């Protein structure tokens, strides 16, 4: 018996796969234009496929090189968020002092009422912009949800019996209260990462689009759109090409993760 391919999975893979491929392999094959090339050349002129942008850079080359920062920043922000959020959540779950747990949670919850983009924009307003601040800001706004998730996974009812057995067997505290709960939380964290990717991509590309992120000369998709904002009617492809890549990346990733995580929804 042959199974029909899942349409959502196929569409999701295609949508996410193309920009991802462009981001990871693109920099190796991207065409370059020599310095001094005429800005805003129409597509197909002077050896370019999609023309040039306001700085005279090949639009196809920008599309192929600008995804690396999107992927790199997202991976960096996610890694930092999990590196900080996981131990925090484990410590809150492990503490016997209830006030400490409550205080920790309330503190983390404050970050929940700060819109993510607001944090990055305020950082930029005070001169804190660039790769490091983008990663720190984007990671910071993920913390409330992450800490709560890890704390819940480590405190799942099924874990208590295991923990009790470990304590009675004389296992060290760090093993029974930190290492084993961390292992138990890995599954939940993997699922969370699938859905969190899109949130992080959105906040990072939006910050770059608003001029609150990377240097204006960066080929990042968000920055290129921001820098070419005035060329919308003159050379729409300079904006539309990176915009379509961001649309495909976000829509495809969400479709893919949603479908993979919830395959039994329709049964």
């Amino acid at each position, binding site marked *: 018996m042959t199974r029909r391919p899942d349409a959502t999975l196929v569409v999701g893979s295609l949508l996410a796969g193309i920009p991802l491929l462009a981001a990871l392999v693109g920099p190796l094959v991207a065409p370059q234009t020599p310095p001094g090339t005429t800005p805003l050349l129409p597509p197909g002129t002077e050896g370019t496929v999609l023309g040039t942008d306001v700085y005279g850079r090949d639009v196809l080359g920008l599309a192929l090189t600008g995804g690396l920062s999107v992927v790199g920043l997202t991976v960096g922000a996610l890694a930092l968020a999990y590196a900080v959020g996981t131990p925090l959540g484990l410590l809150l779950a492990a503490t016997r002092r209830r006030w400490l747990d409550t205080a920790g949670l309330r503190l983390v919850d404050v970050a929940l009422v700060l*819109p993510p983009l607001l944090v990055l924009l305020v950082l930029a307003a005070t001169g804190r912009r660039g790769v490091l601040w983008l990663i720190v800001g984007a990671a910071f706004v993920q913390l409330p949800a992450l800490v709560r998730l890890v704390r819940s996974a480590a405190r799942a009812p099924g874990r208590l019996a295991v923990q009790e057995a470990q304590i009675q067997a004389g296992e060290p505290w760090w093993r029974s209260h930190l290492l084993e709960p961390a292992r138990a939380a890995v599954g939940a964290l993997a699922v969370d990462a699938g859905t969190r990717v899109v949130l992080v991509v959105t906040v990072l590309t939006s910050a770059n689009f608003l001029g609150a992120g990377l240097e204006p000369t960066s080929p990042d998709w968000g920055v290129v759109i921001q820098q070419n904002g005035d060329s919308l009617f003159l050379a729409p492809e300079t904006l539309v090409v990176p915009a*379509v890549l961001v649309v495909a990346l976000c829509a495809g990733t969400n479709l893919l993760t949603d479908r993979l995580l919830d395959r039994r929804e*329709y049964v």
Partner: protein
Amino acid sequence: MTTTAPAPGTVDRPRTLPRRLVGRVAVAAGQLVAVSVIVFALTAALPGDTAEVVLGQQATPEQVAALRAQLGLDRPVLLRFADWVGGVLTGDPGRSLVTGVPVADELAGRLASTASVAGLALLVIVPVALAAGVTAGRRPGSVTDRVITAVATAGQAIPEFASGLVLVAVFAVTLGWLPATAGGGSFTGPAVLVLPVVVLALNQVGRLARQIRIGVVETERAEYVVHLRRLGMGERTLLLRHVLPGALPPTVQQLARVVDGLLGGVVVVEALFALPGVGAGFVEAVQGRDLPLVQGYALLFATTTVVVNLLADLVSDRLAPHREALR
């Protein structure tokens, strides 16, 4: 989990509505205090000289010193914070560094524009999400459900600036049907608002529709609904009197997130379409490094989030009080 019998006379009674109300308002007030500390810390108390950052590298030491005095940066942090909070509480959170206009006036002047865009978007979002969520939820697993769910899933993930640019390229640049921007000035007509509202709706409809779908699917499977259907109750009556009232209370929280998301999305959409609202004002203040304005906008956005969540809590409390009593 172990439970112990309550001591005589201390039986856990569900908290009354006024007590719950006071509790929620107290939590919201605490959040606002914490947010004001964070906003102040981010803008004024982090390491680095704010005056130098605002004026840039070309500034002379005299200019930096003058701005430091103007911003009160030469005074202790706690005093500065107390002054700022005092100003916020008395409705005077300072003046713009660029225009000299009071921050409160600047914010108030832009709020009407933002409220009209967000309000219009809500008028589109709620009925469309309701129709899509109910249609999908009543036939789970059907082709219609799959298509609606897929479109909602993809739509909610797309950043507003990217979907907005693609729509502008199609409907303003290629087809010429709609204006691309408001031109940075006041509204020139309702057509200016079409694309911003569509972009905001595109992102938020999916979230709400999916939540409504889940509510409808669960309520449709509830025994009382199955029983009423067996008894021969008409589908229309069943939907309006039983399925929707059962499915909608949990969506209030999602609606709060949608309203909050709309106000967050407005930052990007107003910048993209040059609409003169608080979102564009915030971005301009950030680009001009106008710190008193940045502080004002940041506090406004965070306050909106706190108030919207507080209202959502109270409304869902009213719609389904038994859930709250069980907490």
